[in-house]
């Protein structure tokens, strides 16, 4: 065993500067030096305050007031809006739909992303073929939400390509109203979201897979482990930190998905695809009940913060 001693002078000069003689000029120089880090931090701090702290505080404030924004003299009503929201049937419908939409999306994203990542990481396919498939698989990620919504609205409309293929192959007798039928709309929007989001997992997991040393698999093979055992004992544990982080991030993002829902079903038909995001939007920009909408937004913020807490904890554990 060997030990290394660091030079004491270096540590001193960085951490605890020698007290100066107390001259004003020297003290000024010290103060200036101490301010430098704050100077570098200032832009970030200003951005955080302007873009995060102020809006959040304002929204929390709005959630406790009635007739906010729409009238010049709003009244303080305490937690009335929160009680209204939490006792509203529509809110719980939106919560249930959001949980289904998010839960199914996250699980499907993970499974499809992992399957495709493993396919692209296998040594059984040539490099050129892999490159072609990688491009194809990543395509949905390149489209903006608006394009995805328009594309799938066209594909899934009663006279669209999907129904044509299904009826032509006699899988269905009549055209299905995928996005307009209360029975299928939630499944349809969830499917679209899955299609749009799996490449995020795929690319991240592929990077993770490429980082697992080949030695592990060779050693396991020598020990007689079959493919499934190698997958469960090496691949999954090695990818676990990435999977946890991504699943939590995806959960946060998907609970806040608005544009896709708004542009495909608008929360309909009959409220079957109403999500927390569309519910809040309608309160604000259709009913102009900004106080109630703020209360709903604060509830979503709290849920997101709980998820963010777990995300940060997972990140720390990973580090």
């Amino acid at each position: 065993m060997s030990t290394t001693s660091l030079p004491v002078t270096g540590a001193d000069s960085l951490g605890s500067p020698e007290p100066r003689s107390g001259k004003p000029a020297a003290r000024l120089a010290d103060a200036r030096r101490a301010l430098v880090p704050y100077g570098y931090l200032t832009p970030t701090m200003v951005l955080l305050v302007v873009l995060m702290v102020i809006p959040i505080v304002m929204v929390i404030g709005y959630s406790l007031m009635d007739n906010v924004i729409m009238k010049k003299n709003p009244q303080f009503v305490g937690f009335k809006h929160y009680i209204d929201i939490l006792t509203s049937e529509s809110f719980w419908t939106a919560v249930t739909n959001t949980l289904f939409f998010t839960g199914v999306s996250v699980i499907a994203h993970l499974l499809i992303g992992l399957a495709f990542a493993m396919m692209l990481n296998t040594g059984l396919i040539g490099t050129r073929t892999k490159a072609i498939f990688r491009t194809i698989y990543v395509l949905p990620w390149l489209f903006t939400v608006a394009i995805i919504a328009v594309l799938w609205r066209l594909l899934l409309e009663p006279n669209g390509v999907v129904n044509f293929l299904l009826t032509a192959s006699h899988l269905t007798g009549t055209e299905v109203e995928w996005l307009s039928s209360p029975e299928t709309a939630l499944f349809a929007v969830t499917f679209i979201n899955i299609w749009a989001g799996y490449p995020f997992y795929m690319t991240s997991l592929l990077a993770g897979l490429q980082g697992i040393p080949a030695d592990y698999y060779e050693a396991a093979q020598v020990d007689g482990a079959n493919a499934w055992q190698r997958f469960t004992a090496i691949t999954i544990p090695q990818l676990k930190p990435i999977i946890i982080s991504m699943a939590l991030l995806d959960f946060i993002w998907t609970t806040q998905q608005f544009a896709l829902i708004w542009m495909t079903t608008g929360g309909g038909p009959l409220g079957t695809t109403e999500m927390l995001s569309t519910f809040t939007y309608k309160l604000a920009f259709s009913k102009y009940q900004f106080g109630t909408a703020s209360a709903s937004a604060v509830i979503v913020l709290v849920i997101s913060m709980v998820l963010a807490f777990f995300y940060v904890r997972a990140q720390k554990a990973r580090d």
Partner: protein
Amino acid sequence: MRKKYLAGIAAMAAAALAMTGCTGGGTAPSASNEGPVTLEFAQWWEPELPANSLRSLMDKFESENPGIKVKLISGPYASTKEQVVAGAAAGTMSDVVGLDGAWVNDFVKQGSLANLTDLMKSANFDESQLAAQVKLDGSTWMIPVANFVYPMFVNDDLLKKAGVAAVPTNRTEFAAAAAAVTKTGKNTSGWVLPLDTATPNGIQNDVMSWVWASGGSMLKDGKPYLVGNTEVKDTMTFIKGMYDAGSIAKGSFTMKEQDKVNEFTNGRVGMMIDSLAHVNLIREENKDLKFSVAAIPSADGYSGKRGMPYASWGIGVANNSKHQAEAFKLVSFLMGKDVNATLCNSAHAFPGNTQAVPDFVNSDPIFKQAFEIYQAGTATNEFTGLPVAEDLMRSFDEQFQKYLAGKQSADDALAASQSAWEKAFSG
């Protein structure tokens, strides 16, 4: 070394200030009396007009009014609405704003619009030249600049193929024609009904239009009148009959106005109620489509004047504007006989100035036909000026969808809508 630190701190502080500057500030111009006044004009019209047509009108205004510049803030309808709502809330609304009649009540309550009656008086503006004014509590808050009426569009070829000899004029003929057209092909429907709840204007244009076309009303003394209203109930039953018969194009519950126009343009729908603003679009998209316009069929036996839905490009002045007199100059410029005719000619809309006659009204047979229907009937839109008008449409839409899906009766749908509307009116 010291200089470096100072420079570093100064640079950071400057960057921070610059960023604060970027995020702060409003859209309202300064109150400075020196130099030209710059008016902001927020609207959704420019993207819907031929390139540069609105800008060239603004250039004309600027040349006639030295010292006033106009900055156009243009975007799609939905984003303009959000921008105007946010501007109204923050007191940073643009000086002149494009308005939809459905927004007016809420903005007036909020105190974000200037009283145009006062501005017209101050400017000695002749009100008699205006085709319409949107008033609340006796004062004008919005002036319709261009009006888009919603007649019935008919696919002449499809009706001919279905053996329908004449364009339907009443509901019985319409239902029969829709059923006949539906039978002509697997992907063909008689009528198309967009009921998407994200943009629920289908209730105004495609549902209530039937009530208005027969002289009916959804209001009594300015208050909701749905329960016990036989005209509204009859319309609902009439539409449900066609829905159950399969005469309405599939996908109604999440269909948007644009989808409706696409269905018609692609020749899959026999009839639709739509804005004249789409005539050119339909022609460009499908040059072979033979179509005409007609009045919306009325209830059987009705012979009175027919109401025809319309939507307006309205205009108003922001209460927070520091240049309201100059802003009204722009309003009166756009409402002037010649300018209004030029604008409406570009938009293919009917003018807000009674004396303006756009060229297209005489040169194009479809618009000529529509203008005749417009003059024979009454432009009606009962949602204009109502509180949270879009939300009223949405709450009716949700109940109507439940009725169409067979999940409740017409009376239950009307009762639930009445209750939602009364709550909105009292709020």
